């Protein structure tokens, strides 16, 4: 048994034993659980993929004369201005003004909030256009200027939901192609698409949230950020396997970090044909090996993690709850699965290759003594599920449609 303080002392002295969630599997096989738990201080987990519930708060500073910006566009993408004078929130899935969306189906969605965030982190210049109604103390009514992230007072990423513990695997059982956030799904189970780093994914390595909680320091696209809350739709009460690993979405994390500290490689705008825009992010989360139980969970492997296969042409939009099958990530990563007697090629929306790279980057930072672990301020909720939105009339009587 180790403590956070002991592990951090070893990190600071450059003596910490750190392995990635990929490396730890063979290590535990070789050394045995108890011995490995004595030796290993930290296991690094990671994921890289589209995370739609992301965005950032920006503070522009004040111009002369002052302006209380009430409408703003960054590279023609609207930002939310319902906060103080020169603060805005830019959301990852916001479309560019005038984007035809799916008017000419399927839309291309070439540029949106996620792409503006990518440009900002990359240090590129972005056009701010703002309007206001004008007040006595903030008389300016219009502004147009070009800025970079270095000109901003703050650029803080605040993401209400990242790092889904597990995720649906999408297929299309209908007769026509469909465009989803899991990509193009071909008709008649023509392909299958998943989105998780499996055995590398943070919350799959800590299925009962013993170490990852509110206040946990995380590697957010290279910046040292932290978990500020459980993510929206956090639903730990769910279908779980004997190893406690969820067999469906389950837990989520709300993350924040300073965009000025981020590595642009891991902050990428996403265009999903027929669906919309988003932001792909790289996240790494260290797991302190405080006990053999924590290590056992962190040594989970792809063949012991199952995801539900859902038909996105009908069962997903209509919320029927029907699951066609459960597939392990080991099966999915082979590139071809058998579904209803048919051989189906596999695609992924999540990048395992980059998750692996991030797990190594975080491992190296911890080994160099540059990244210390933080004890959570409070644990993530372990018992709650996701409510549905009921459609009611004004007397709160439920209506069917």
């Amino acid at each position, binding site marked *: 048994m180790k403590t956070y303080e002991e592990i951090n002392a070893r990190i600071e002295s450059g003596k910490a034993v750190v392995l990635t969630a990929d490396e730890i599997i063979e290590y535990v096989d070789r050394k045995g659980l108890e011995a490995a738990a004595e030796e290993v201080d930290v296991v690094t987990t990671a994921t890289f993929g589209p995370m739609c519930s992301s965005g950032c708060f920006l503070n522009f500073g004040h111009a002369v004369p002052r302006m209380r910006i009430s409408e703003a566009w960054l590279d023609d993408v609207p930002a939310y201005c319902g906060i103080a004078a020169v603060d805005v929130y830019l959301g990852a899935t916001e479309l560019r003004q005038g984007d035809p969306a799916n008017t000419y189906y399927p839309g291309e969605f070439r540029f949106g909030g996620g792409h503006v965030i990518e440009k900002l982190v990359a240090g590129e210049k972005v056009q701010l256009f703002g309007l206001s109604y004008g007040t006595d103390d903030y008389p300016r009514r219009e502004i147009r200027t070009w800025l970079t992230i270095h000109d901003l007072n703050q650029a803080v990423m605040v993401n209400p939901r990242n790092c889904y513990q597990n995720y649906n695997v999408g297929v299309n059982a209908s007769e026509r192609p469909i465009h989803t956030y899991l990509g193009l799904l071909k008709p008649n189970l023509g392909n299958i698409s998943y989105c998780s780093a499996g055995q590398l994914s943070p919350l799959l390595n800590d299925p009962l949230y013993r170490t990852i909680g509110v206040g946990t320091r995380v590697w957010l696209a290279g910046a040292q950020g932290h978990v500020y809350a459980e993510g929206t739709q956090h639903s730990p009460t769910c279908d779980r396997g004997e190893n406690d690993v969820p067999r469906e979405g389950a837990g989520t994390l709300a993350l924040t970090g300073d965009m000025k500290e981020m590595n642009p490689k891991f902050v*990428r705008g*996403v265009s999903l044909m027929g669906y919309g825009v988003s932001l*792909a992010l790289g996240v790494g989360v260290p797991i302190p090996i405080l006990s053999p139980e924590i290590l056992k969970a962190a040594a989970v492997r792809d063949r012991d993690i199952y995801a539900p296969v859902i038909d996105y042409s009908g069962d997903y939009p209509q919320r029927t709850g029907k699951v066609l099958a459960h597939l392990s990530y080991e099966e999915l*990563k082979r590139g071809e699965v058998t579904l209803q007697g048919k051989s189906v090629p596999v695609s992924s929306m999540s990048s395992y290759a*980059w998750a692996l790279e991030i797990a190594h980057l975080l491992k190296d930072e911890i080994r160099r003594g540059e990244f210390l672990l933080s004890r959570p301020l409070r644990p993530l909720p372990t018992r709650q599920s996701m409510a549905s939105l009921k459609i009611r009339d004004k007397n709160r009587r439920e209506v069917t449609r």
Partner: protein
Amino acid sequence: MSARLSEPSTGAVTKKLTLYFPRSETEKPIVYHLVKDYNLVINIFRAKVTPEEYGYLVLDVTGTEEDIRRGMDFVRTFDVRIDESHKGVRWDRDTCVMCGNCVSHCPTGALHVEDRRSMAVAFDSDLCVECLACLANCPYGACTSVF
């Protein structure tokens, strides 16, 4: 029919070429002459031949080395630029995030997972048939067409 117009004899090779046409040359029957006068088998993959605009042909040319060389010398007399072994589709390794969304949309396996342990994605341009499925399906714009 002369022997020269029969199927290319053994010793024939196939080259993938891209011919870029200047604006003024798009109405000349160049492919006709390549077949008739130089005994070449032509398989056109992509073409854009529009009056008053520059144009291009992406084609396989099969014939003897000598016939292909003479045929291309003929083509150059029209101020046509020839790009050998050129692919219209480009995969940018630096833009690719290696997610693998493309692999089930690539019909020939040109885009593929090269290592199942790291799940790294790679592009084999020799297998690419320029169907452009990857262009529409890549969320990051890693695949582009030069045309």
